[in-house]
């Protein structure tokens, strides 16, 4: 379709405006983290690094950061194992209910967050598990499986099986073929899926708040402190930290693997 220069320009300006809309709040939080004023007025009063020092000194913030990282690593490892196994099963075999597997993997993230949250919370309460790191890891793992699964199965569908057949024909057994042929072709997809799982877990609050008990992940710390007027500038700093630690893995994932981009959860 022919497009006039005016139409092109209009489209370009609209796109720029939408990008500005998407990134403005994030930029604002970055700015406020360095603001001398305790109250987030506009324009900012001056530049300071004081709040970063305060945040670094808080043992509560350090503890929640450490819990968030532990939970994200745990959930990512579980998701990597389960997601890869499910992807191989669905790709390599045809069996009754194969379509249901993809559906089941997507379900924890497709259903409204509060539903997943209270379902898991009720289940943990019923079987008498103490709320804490373990329940957070289990909860996060259920909805992180999909990122690994999606990335792995997209890669499996793209790689030809003839390489594996060649390896077997040349005398390699199943393990050798897996180690030298199958796994290397899958490696970056798994890395990207794992990074996304990490970011997803690190970022999550809707389900986490219901299964964490008295424990605080970094988002929960923000949620518990945003109303305290004295804490406002420190909350901005923690928010900056939280967004950095989830943006970096997503950015790396999108660089590593083309499947990671364009796959909405």
């Amino acid at each position, binding site marked *: 379709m022919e497009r006039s220069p005016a139409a092109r320009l209009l489209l370009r300006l609209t796109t720029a405006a939408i990008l500005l809309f998407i990134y403005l709040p994030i930029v604002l939080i970055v700015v406020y983290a360095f603001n001398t004023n305790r109250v987030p007025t506009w324009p900012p009063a001056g530049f300071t690094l004081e709040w970063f020092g305060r945040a670094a000194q808080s043992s509560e913030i350090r503890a929640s950061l450490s819990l968030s990282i532990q939970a994200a690593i745990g959930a990512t490892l579980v998701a990597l194992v389960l997601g890869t196994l499910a992807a191989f099963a669905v790709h390599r075999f045809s069996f009754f209910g194969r379509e249901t597997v993809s559906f089941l993997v997507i379900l924890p993230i497709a259903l409204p967050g*509060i539903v997943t949250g209270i379902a*898991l919370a009720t289940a943990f309460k019923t079987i008498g598990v103490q709320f804490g790191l373990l329940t957070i890891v289990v909860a996060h793992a259920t909805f992180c499986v999909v990122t690994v699964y999606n990335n792995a199965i997209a890669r499996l569908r793209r790689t030809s099986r003839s390489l594996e057949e060649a390896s077997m024909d040349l005398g390699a057994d199943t393990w050798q073929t897996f180690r030298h042929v199958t796994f290397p072709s899958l490696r970056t997809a798994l890395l990207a899926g794992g990074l996304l799982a990490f970011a997803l877990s690190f970022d999550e609050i809707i389900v986490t708040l219901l299964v964490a008990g008295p424990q605080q992940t970094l988002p929960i710390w*923000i949620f518990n402190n945003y109303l305290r007027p004295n804490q406002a500038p420190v909350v901005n700093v923690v928010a900056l930290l939280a967004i950095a630690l989830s943006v970096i893995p997503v950015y790396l994932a999108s660089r590593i693997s083309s499947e990671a981009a364009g796959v909405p959860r």
Partner: protein
Amino acid sequence: MTGTATAAHRAFGRRLATALYRRPRLQLGLLLGPPLGALVIAYLGALVLLLINAFWRYDAFIGRVVTQPTLDNFVQIVTASVFRDVAVRTVLTAGAVTIADAVIAFPIAYYMARVASHRTRNILVVAVVLPLWSGYLVKVYAWRVMLLNGGFLDSVLAPIGLRGPGLSDVSAWLVFSYLWLPYMILPIYAGLERIPGSLLEASADLGARASTTFRRVILPLTLPAVIAGSIFTFSLTLGDYVTPSLVAGGTQFIGNIVFENIGVVGNTPLAAAYACVPIVVMLIYLLLARRTGAFESL
């Protein structure tokens, strides 16, 4: 010693590999067992338990849950106007968010898919994917800071004689639309990219103006993608209680009532029954969406 041990190991490994190779069913079972077991037990099991809970009753007098099957919770949800109002408000907001996102997503998705150069397109995809996966709470919090009285929005809008919406239900709609926008942009982008250029050329050759081509060719072909995106915008809005509690200024949504009842009040049965509302709404939505073939665009 170690040499023979590894040799024995290797021989065992080989035998195991051959045994597995000859038994594809066993292989499938070993592959599928752990993930399926975990998801069925941990997730579906939890959902079933939630449903069972919805039929129990919370006795405020003794402060405990009575495990006797009853329909009380559901009767309360249907008859009490608070529950009805909140459910209607939540579903209407989800609809309004979906419409806003579809309208905002179309131009940027169109630019990405059909106008931008290959390089720009890749940059834009990353720019849209980054906020999709990260910083959920930070973004909500940032909006709260912007929306507060005398905050960024009020200061910026003051010269043109306007005010921001403050903390209100309108703000909840605005922030939801902001948060889920990338979930709408990506499917529409993918849908637009799949339309062959020849179709648009044919439409133009046959004398259609740009607006006609858009209405008669582009829109019908991208509708499944819009519906695919709307599944996310709808479901995410229905299941959120964090955003309303930060930016809605006391206006309640389904999630808030569920969260309050399970947390502060301890009335898990009522929370479970009320959580059935978003589940039912989503099931109906998914069934309708399936008919339009939107699932292929997911």
